[in-house]
């Protein structure tokens, strides 16, 4: 099928196209130079054209997300939509059904989303849900930092075998990147404990969080994985934790070679100053300063949006603290030899001091970090708010007026302590295109995503707004409305959304990395691992492996390693 998108204002930062009026040609799912006169024409005159959005961190599939669904029937009652001839029935709200997740991302013009944390033992579940998320392409990060086999190898200094094991696990379980969640702390949560600093010991492994992070960062490079290590810090959710965040970034600075080698995720949750909930303040200025001076770091926001949320992380001890703070219902789910997960429903309130400070931190990070290629838009869906609120966050970034309107409603003490009122910066459409698709695609090293150059996947978002005429600073509500319902979303060359409605549905691809591991090394490693498996796990190694036929639409990405 051929498509010609005519006369739109195109924002394609990877190809340095900044609001140029141009045509985009599509053939067989790819962007091409030109198409025949038979091509279906989409008139994008006076519209905004961008690559499809790429979400680098969102909880969309797997045991933790589904636990949230089961835990919260009250979340679903008011947000439903009947089945249509094209779509399955929809159920929201903060933890939507798989189908709903696909449709709603597509309506926002997003076409690629990565599940943020899959424990290896339950990754089969993650894939079963990914198989049922329509329209978008997807993948998942594997949580590996509290994995006993990884910890054994790292503490014994067997880094080659550890790399071989991690390489094998990506092949066996079909994941995309190394996720690190409160390294060492989650292992200790197995005993109801936690770590407090990067140098705490994690018995019985004779290893510290710092050594885990550095080891995995080195292995990431040895395996030549497309993304960096993707890290949720120690001490998350505690006042004063911005120091841990900066220390964590700095602990791998010497391992970098000019490119980013660490991604710190949902930094809002680890960007707290002060030393108690009473003296809480934003640590965003300090973090932004560090990021501005060090190019080995990328971050995403975890921006808070006031209203309902469901907190869900692989950080069991953090969720335990949160349930004690809130008294809300709490699900904890430990995974043998691998980690944990916790879920607590939450509501962010404007008048609550802590929530208001949290709201300012995300925005300060986005506005104080100068290079938009290293700060990405997320709400850590559904932890700080749902992905459906991205248009709202975008308008806060594009309009000081929009920010001030909220600032006038939030807790007064929080407003007084924040630097946000003094920040004048307003994002441009070009910068928005960077933080929502171009930079995330680049950080994930997805060569065919996040841009509209010839050869790219024809994943395109068209919004009914004229960027040449509108002043987003003042007319932010118009921007928000346009971004909420894409005029068109095109996925793999197919029109899937028109005027904010789903017009076609199919299952997108699940991509995963397939590192080449030297045969002898892999054999040696597997011999040891299969012995350990008998002691550590309650399933056999054979049944741990996920067959490629278990993925609805599998797309392996071969990786040459430096092993």
């Amino acid at each position, binding site marked *: 099928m051929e498509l010609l998108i005519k006369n739109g204002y195109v924002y394609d930062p990877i190809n340095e196209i900044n609001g140029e009026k141009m045509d985009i040609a599509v053939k067989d799912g790819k962007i091409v130079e030109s198409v025949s006169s038979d091509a279906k024409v989409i008139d994008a005159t006076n519209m905004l054209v961008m690559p499809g959005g790429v979400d680098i961190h969102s909880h969309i*599939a797997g*045991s933790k*997300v*589904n636990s949230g*669904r*089961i*835990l*919260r*029937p009250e979340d*679903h*009652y008011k947000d*439903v*939509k*009947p*089945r249509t*001839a094209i779509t*399955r*029935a*929809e*159920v929201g709200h903060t*933890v*939507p*059904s*798989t*189908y709903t997740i696909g449709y709603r991302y597509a309506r926002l013009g997003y076409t690629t989303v990565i599940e943020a944390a899959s424990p290896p*033992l*339950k990754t*089969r*579940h993650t894939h*079963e*849900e990914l198989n*049922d998320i329509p329209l978008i392409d997807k993948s998942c990060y594997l949580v590996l930092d509290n994995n006993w086999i990884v910890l054994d190898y790292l503490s014994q200094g067997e880094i080659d075998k550890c790399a071989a094991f991690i390489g094998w696990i990506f092949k066996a379980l079909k994941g995309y990147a190394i996720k690190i969640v409160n390294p060492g702390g989650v292992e200790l*949560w*197995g*005993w*109801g404990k936690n770590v407090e600093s990067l140098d705490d010991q994690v018995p019985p492994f004779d290893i510290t969080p710092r050594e885990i992070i550095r080891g995995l960062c080195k292995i990431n490079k040895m395996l030549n994985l497309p993304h960096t290590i993707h890290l949720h810090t120690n001490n998350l959710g505690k006042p004063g934790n911005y120091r841990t965040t900066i220390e964590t970034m700095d602990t791998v600075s010497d391992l970098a070679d000019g490119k980013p080698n660490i991604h710190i995720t949902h930094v809002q949750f680890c960007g707290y100053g002060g030393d108690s909930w009473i003296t809480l303040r934003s640590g965003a200025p300090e973090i932004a300063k560090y990021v501005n001076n060090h190019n080995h770091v990328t971050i995403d926001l975890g921006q808070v949006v006031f209203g309902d949320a469901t907190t869900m992380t692989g950080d069991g001890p953090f969720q*335990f603290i949160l*349930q*004690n703070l809130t008294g809300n*219902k*709490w*699900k*904890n*789910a*430990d*995974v*043998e*030899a691998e980690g*944990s997960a916790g879920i607590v429903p939450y509501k962010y309130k404007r008048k609550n001091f802590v929530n208001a400070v949290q709201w300012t931190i995300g925005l300060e990070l986005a506005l104080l970090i100068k290079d938009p290629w290293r700060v990405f838009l997320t709400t850590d869906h559904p932890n700080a708010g749902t992905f459906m609120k991205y248009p709202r966050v975008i308008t806060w970034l594009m309009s000081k007026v929009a920010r001030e309107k909220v600032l006038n409603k939030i807790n007064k003490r929080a407003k007084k302590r924040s630097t946000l009122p003094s920040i004048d910066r307003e994002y441009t459409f070009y910068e928005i295109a960077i933080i929502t698709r171009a930079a995330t695609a680049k950080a994930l090293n997805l060569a065919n995503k996040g841009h509209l150059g010839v050869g790219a996947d024809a994943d395109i978002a068209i919004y009914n707004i004229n960027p040449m005429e509108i002043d987003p600073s003042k007319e932010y509500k118009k921007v928000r409305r346009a971004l909420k319902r894409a005029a068109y979303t095109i996925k793999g060359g197919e029109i899937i959304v028109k005027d904010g409605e789903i017009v076609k549905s199919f299952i997108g691809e699940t991509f995963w990395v397939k590192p080449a591991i030297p045969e002898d090394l892999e054999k040696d490693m597997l011999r040891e691992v299969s012995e350990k498996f008998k*002691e*550590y*796990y*309650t*399933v*056999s190694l*054979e*049944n741990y492996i*996920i*067959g490629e036929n*278990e993925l609805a639409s599998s797309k392996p990405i071969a990786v040459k390693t430096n092993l």
Partner: protein
Amino acid sequence: MKTVRNVVCPFCGSLCDDIEVDIEDNRVVKVRKGCAISATKFTKYNEERIYKPRIDGREVSLEEAINEAVEILANAKYPALYGWSCTSTEAINIGIEIAELVGGVMDNTASVCHGPTILGEQDAGISTCTLGQVKNRAELIIYWGCNPAHAHPRHMARYSAASRGRFVKGRKERTVIVVDVRKTHTAKTADIFIQIKPNSDFELLTALRWAVKNGELEQEEIAGIPAEKIEELADMLISCRFGALFFGLGLTMSAGKARNIEAAVNLVRELNNYTKFVMVPMRGHFNVTGANEVMAWATGFPFAVDFSRGYPFYNPGDTTFVDVLTRGDCDAALIVASDPVSGFPAEAIRNLAKIPVITLDPHETLTTMISKVVIPTAVVGIEAEGSAYRMDAVPLRLKKLVEPPPGILSDEEVLKMILKKLKERVK
């Protein structure tokens, strides 16, 4: 002869995945490592089989049976789809779409076993874990209202009391407590047996929480147990490094039901302020957990989903199959991999007998005997592959070991055919 290793046993919620099966001439001839129930399941799955589809007791072709099933479902105003715990997750997933398409009720057997566990969790949450966490760390194990020695025969050896883990090396290093109304086989192996008065679980759980929190109880005796004993027990729970509470239908189906679970959840939550504590439901059928999981990801709710409004609506006690049936509301039923007639209340069965029932099952059951349409299917985990979720929600892949009898398809395949035809029929 060939031997297949690491076979996942499709019987109970333990999903033991280390079974070895010898196969000769498309038949299972020997089973190793499995429990007695497992061995029987693998070797006798061919008894009481149904080989031909039937309409009103008359043998018909598969196509005729499917057409009739489609007619019944398409013409029904309020059909109910029930069962699902003994089939693959993939098959259940198709069932959900059928229910959505015809505007029916989709419910699974959790509603008559661990439904209260889910309701208790929805009220208060749950601190849980995979079974390996217990194997590796648990110094103290409580079995409450469950009898794994009979119902989950290898549970204690593989996952709990007598398992060998990394930090806790076996039965001698663990303390085992059984709480039950009678001295079961499991109770006989325990270090401590607490025999409570029937229907007083809620009281004992609440008293234990009080004792954990405040040390001393005012009463002399609660649930038939002296206060000193309860206080002593509370001290034991606090002082272990890692404790696990396994519970069964003795807790979920005795007086209080979901409130019992809530009391247990709150006890375990309180204990986590002192030590590490978890609880795990002893789920019965091999994929009842999977039925809850797939229903939750596709509809938001784990069981008892009503699609009559076009979207999922959940109201257990109202949209649960047994209630729909007892009220006489549904005018057709599709039963898959379950035998409600053998376990449901008489009034519900009387109503079931009045409506057209379509049943998919490998074996003759009381339900197939009252069904208008019977479609025999392959035995999942022996003749058909698919995914299943263990009681702790660990997903495993069931294997296909032998070919099903000629002409017999899997639940998944039959349901796909029904869905396809229904889509043409219901626009």
